């Protein structure tokens, strides 16, 4: 018995340890780096010539940078959902997913803050936010809440990592010197003592409780960047809840995609199995339905009244210039995934992966639709401005930066998976034992 336990442990550890990039890994990483570098070059051009390199103009003063920002903030919420909610609810099947969720959260929040700086006309004056910050402004709330969420997410990533660090340190010989140094720096004090375990568990529980309201705050405040203005389509009391439900959906979709990819690449079929997909599928369906419900609220109620300022906006969405994109986002982001995932057969890994991708893509365009069409429908007519101000289609620099930032976020996740076990080893072992007993 003793022996088999040790063997099983050894096997799990071996399976889950971070692995060197294979050929595919190299190509993937290289491609991401190239895309990110193109984005960096585009940003260099923007710094040099000003925001004129974008297609944003006086009416559409926020473009895909901001929708990308909202997307990042949305997807980062998933960390709190998977980790905190499940942990508090004592759901055990989600253990292998927690670290995936957390690293998505951390990298997304990092890039959310970067993209906000990219959007600024005067990035070098970022310090003004701290020197002259005005508590009345929702932007300042956002800055505060995002940095708080970032710290909490990091903690939530770090604390459960401690026992795994011990395992990593123990396999000293097999790793590069630099990595070992880092592991030691981060976790050499973790000895797995009972007292340490106790403190750690308590800390994680506290974290899980704290992160939920903070996560709600970060996305609610982000929605307030829009809802505190008078613009048609933004002027809604429903916006916080609408954004949060959307965020949970895209986050869950993102986790499904990541689950599938890691499982495939790292051969983790044993640890992330069909049961996980099935359960995640059910959750995604529930979230998609919830988001659909908020969408109905968000569009049907104003459409019923058709107030004058809203009219142009809504007709453009439903049947005008933005209609193809709008219905694409609704169908691909919600309806089709719901249709797939409602069935047991749809909750198998492959269809789940497809649904997850659809959700993420649909969500990205949904954010775009939230930001841009509204700005093209101001209260007073667009007049005395150049013709080009009447439309918006992102310039290549904007695309490059937006896509580059997405690549950057993926890069962070990739490197993280290279350095740390993407599935918690220690917890999986414990779990294994509990189920065995």
């Amino acid at each position, binding site marked *: 018995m003793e022996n088999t336990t040790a063997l099983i442990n050894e096997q799990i550890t071996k399976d889950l340890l971070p692995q060197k990039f294979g050929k595919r890994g190299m190509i993937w990483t290289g491609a991401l780096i190239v895309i990110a570098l193109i984005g960096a070059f585009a940003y260099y051009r923007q710094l040099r010539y000003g925001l*004129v390199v974008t297609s944003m103009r006086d009416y559409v003063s926020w473009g895909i940078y901001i929708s990308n920002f909202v997307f990042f903030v949305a997807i980062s919420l998933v960390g709190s959902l998977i980790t905190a909610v499940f942990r508090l609810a004592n759901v055990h099947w989600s253990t292998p997913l927690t670290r995936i969720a957390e690293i998505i959260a951390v990298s997304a929040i990092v890039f959310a803050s970067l993209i906000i700086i990219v959007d600024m006309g005067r990035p070098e004056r970022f310090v003004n936010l701290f020197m002259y910050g005005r508590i009345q402004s929702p932007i300042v709330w956002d800055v505060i809440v995002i940095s708080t969420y970032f710290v909490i997410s990091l903690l939530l990533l770090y604390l459960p990592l401690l026992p795994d660090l011990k395992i990593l340190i123990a396999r000293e010989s097999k790793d590069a010197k630099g990595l070992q140094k880092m592991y030691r720096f981060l976790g050499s004090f973790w000895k797995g003592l009972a007292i340490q375990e106790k403190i750690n568990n308590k800390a994680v529980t506290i974290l899980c409780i704290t992160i939920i309201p903070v996560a709600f705050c970060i996305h609610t405040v982000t929605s307030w960047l829009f809802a505190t*203005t008078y613009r048609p389509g933004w002027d809604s009391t429903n916006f916080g809840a609408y954004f949060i439900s959307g965020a949970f959906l895209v986050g869950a979709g993102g986790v499904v995609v990541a689950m599938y990819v890691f499982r495939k690449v790292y051969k983790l079929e044993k640890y992330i199995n069909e049961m996980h997909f099935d359960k995640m599928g059910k959750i995604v369906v529930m979230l998609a339905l919830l988001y659909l419900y908020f969408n109905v609220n968000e569009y049907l109620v104003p459409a019923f009244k058709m107030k004058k300022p809203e009219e142009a906006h809504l007709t453009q969405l439903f049947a005008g210039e933005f209609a193809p994109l709008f219905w694409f986002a609704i169908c691909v982001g919600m309806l089709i995934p719901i249709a797939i995932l409602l069935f047991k057969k749809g909750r198998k890994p492959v269809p789940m992966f497809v649904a997850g991708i659809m959700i993420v893509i649909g969500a990205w365009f949904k954010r775009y639709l939230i930001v841009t069409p509204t700005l093209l429908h101001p209260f007073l007519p667009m007049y005395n401005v150049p013709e080009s101000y009447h439309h918006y289609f992102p310039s290549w620099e904007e695309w490059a930066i937006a896509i580059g930032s997405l690549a950057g976020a993926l890069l962070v996740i990739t490197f993280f998976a290279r350095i740390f076990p993407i599935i918690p080893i220690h917890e999986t072992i414990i779990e294994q034992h509990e189920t065995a007993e």
Partner: protein
Amino acid sequence: MENKNASRREFLTAGMLAAGVATGCSSKKNPFDGYSDSSIKASGETVKLLSVDGEIIEMDKAFLKPVPDLPISNSEARKGIDGKKFVMVIDLSRCKNVGACKSACNHAHQLNPGQNWIKVLPMQDAEHTAPYWEPTTCMHCDEPPCVKVCPVDATFKRQDGIVLIDSDRCIGCRFCMAACPYSTRVFNWQEPILEKEIAAQPYSCETSMPQKMGTVSKCDFCPDMARKGELPHCVSACPNGVFAFGDMNEDSVTNGTETFRFSELIKSKAGYRLMEDLGTKPRVYYLPPANRNFPYESGLENVDTEDKKYQLK
């Protein structure tokens, strides 16, 4: 530093006496007569002074007075002029889209092509109502949504009612542009094209010049002109007297040739403000386009296509 500047300013003031009197001098129609204090009595005591042009001038001491045309410190510019409540009345019945307001403003503030602080909009409220021309400026709202959202106090409300922008502070987040329901704010998407001497000046919130790349700008009610006792550029440029500018605390507004009692004007002509329902409390009042001086169509020939064609690079 500020103190030093102040004393330097006083010194300059004395030195620039000749110019100073010239500034104070009223043209016959100076609408801000109140600023040039004509109650000075000759003291009989004369002083010799060097004019800006190197000439020696003899002058009665009583005429020495500060020149208002000097740079205002940032903190002064943020407070505004005490005891004033600036207000504007735009008479829609007189507008035929001449566009003189726009070009005077653009010229005075060195706005780049494609930028307009004043827009003259062709409006038609409903299908069967009559169209009219509506010049819009910044409304200098008393509860300005743009100021509410600014994260760094770069745009601010002054005690004299004016809403200004500090382009040395602005981080270019453009939240204020999204928040302003009147779409009045413009952004410097690229390095603004400026005359050399203007570009070399230090930025002043009151002149809104020189503009800076990556910051926001908008109509400023020309507080620099008000300090000098003159009307905003749009007001004096309009040949039809559409704009009237004044001080609510004095209950009067003027378009340069006519002066009205503000309260009476608003009452007799049923003045109103734009988008009252939003609660922004604008400081710009409109008089309805009733009993018009010109038919709407007469403005169509002035429709400006220049701006439309312009492309930022």
